[in-house]
């Protein structure tokens, strides 16, 4: 059955492999060059490579996934496959598992090159969302999740292209939700409050040499002293002047002036808080997010098996 799976999905796997090799070559070129020269063209090329790395797991996962179910049902070849001597469940798993493994290996290889590349271009710590998304183990999770969503969509909709669009939009939506809502909480946030509360405080006094080195900045603003988040029901206030109509000078320039605190923050009993995920939490977040996508993939495959066993063809 491994041969069957390979033969049915050969074209998709070869295309994925080709794109992976192309991306690896492009990363090798743009990653090495950035160490010496840094021109606009290199930046453009890096952006292009990043776009490919960003899209590849979802696109390839969806294409492989809908091929397993929707294409068979659209072309009625499942009527051939499902009347042979094996059950529908075994047929689905036997055709799916080999491509899932092959695709995962391809994604793991490309993301390990990407992890080197992200460090080589040296623009930001890899915990930054755009770099986080293309490195580590999450690309494998994205691939498996999108593939399972494609399989599920193909179990519901008979049209390959429609199932593909549904699964693609669903997978992109899932990635956006996880990235913005779930990922910040996958490891305990670090709060930084007292550093800025004093005369002459600026970002440059933050340990590690400034804001970018902190890590992935999640929230910042003025909150009541003793808290690391706003009062329930209140937004984050980026400037004191926005707080309760309290008359304050706008924070300007390179740093926080002493007067800001004496005039506004102290009477109002506010302090400035920064919530962030430090670079050291990279693997915690990677493992958590990849785990979410793999678990969702398993659930989607289970649901697809349930639906396919019940479906009338």
């Amino acid at each position, binding site marked *: *059955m491994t*041969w*069957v799976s390979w*033969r*049915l999905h050969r*074209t998709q796997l070869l295309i994925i492999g080709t794109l992976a090799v192309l991306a690896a070559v492009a990363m090798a070129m743009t990653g090495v060059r950035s160490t010496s020269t840094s021109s606009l063209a290199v930046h453009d090329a890096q952006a292009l490579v990043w776009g490919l790395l960003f899209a590849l797991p979802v696109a390839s996962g969806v294409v492989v996934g809908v091929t397993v179910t929707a294409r068979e049902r659209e*072309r*009625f*070849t*499942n*009527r*051939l*496959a*499902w*009347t*042979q*001597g*094996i*059950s*529908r469940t075994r*047929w689905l798993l036997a055709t799916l598992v080999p491509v899932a493994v092959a695709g995962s290996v391809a994604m793991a290889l490309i993301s390990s090159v990407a992890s080197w590349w992200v460090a080589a271009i040296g623009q930001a710590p890899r915990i930054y969302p755009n770099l986080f998304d293309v490195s580590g183990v999450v690309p494998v999770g994205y691939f498996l999740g999108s593939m399972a969503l494609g399989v599920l969509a193909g179990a519901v909709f008979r049209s390959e292209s429609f199932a593909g669009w549904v699964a693609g939009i669903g997978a992109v939506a899932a990635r956006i939700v996880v990235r913005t809502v779930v990922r910040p909480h996958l490891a305990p946030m670090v709060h930084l409050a007292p550093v800025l509360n004093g005369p002459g405080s600026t970002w440059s006094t933050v340990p590690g040499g400034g804001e970018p080195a902190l890590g992935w900045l999640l929230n910042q603003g003025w909150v009541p002293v003793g808290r690391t988040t706003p009062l329930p029901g209140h937004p984050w206030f980026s400037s004191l002047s926005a707080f309760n109509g309290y008359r304050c000078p706008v924070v300007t320039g390179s740093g926080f002036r002493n007067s800001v605190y004496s005039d506004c923050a102290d009477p109002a009993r506010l302090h400035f808080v920064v919530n962030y995920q430090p670079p050291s939490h990279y693997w915690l977040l990677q493992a958590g997010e990849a785990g979410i996508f793999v678990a969702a993939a398993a659930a989607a495959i289970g649901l697809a098996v349930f639906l*396919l*066993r*019940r*479906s*009338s*063809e």
Partner: protein
Amino acid sequence: MTDGQLPGTRGAPDGGAPAVECRGLTKHYWRGDALVDCSFSVPEGRLAALVGPNGAGKSTFLRIAAGLTRPTSGDIDVLGEPIVSGRTVATHVGYVDQVRPLYRRLRVDEHLRMAAAMNDVWDQAMAVRLLSQLEVPLRARVGRLSVGQQAKVAVTLCLATRPRLMLLDEPLASLDPVARTMLMRALLAEVSEMGTTVVLSSHVISDLDPVCDYLIILRDGQAVLSEPMDDVRAGHHLVVAGRDAPSPPGDVVTEERGARQVRWMVRSHEPPIGGLGGGSGEGPDVEVLRPSLDEIVVAHLTRRHASATTPADDGGVGAGGADGVDGAGQRDLVIADEGERA
């Protein structure tokens, strides 16, 4: 693995276990009913023809028997086991869909390799021999083959699993006469050697006439007739008489009134001569003819009220049922090759 049935049992009298038996089989689609309380059985070893117009439920029945579609209600046993769609693995059942689904980008020999991987029983030698006999190139991509060649591949894939039951949905549709003959001959040779039961649906009765030994007529989702072909032939009579002659005894399937004469299709065990009004048997204007299979099928499909599958014993039952079957009624029939579908 065959069931060990010897060749030559084809056409044996009924009494063996049925290869397929359905009871009250019903399938609702939201656009209408495909099968309505349909009950019949096919004895083992038979080559059964499943005929009926479009929408009579032939394909639905075959897909249910193959475990592809689940019925709304009712039971179906195949080779003595109940079929549950999606659960049952039909190891001894072969099925060829009417669209003859194959993987267009795969070569013929790749299909064989795939089928070998997906079946416990696979006769590679038989598959290769059949395909060369049917003049199908092994190395060709299936998408490049003609419709007839694809049908040959589909039937070969089915035969090489050495099934005890084959379900063939319109296997001959849109094939040219040469391909038809070739495929049918090869199929018959193999199934009679293996003792396989075959249920074959078709619009074209003439294709089935010489080869099938069992007949099921489906109409509006119900089996209006299900019996051995010999009984069908022996049990139907075409009575032609003058306009004013009384109805013949037996189950009158159809009555056609022309300007001068009336034609009845009568279903009874005995030729319906004695009961006719002339006293001394047939008068000069009464004639009893042996109808063709075509005429029998058409009569059952144009009958005003579909009745039970058992012929009525007492005379006169259903006699008035076919009043006014005329030329207009005949034109509604679709007993023709409807051509390739999608």
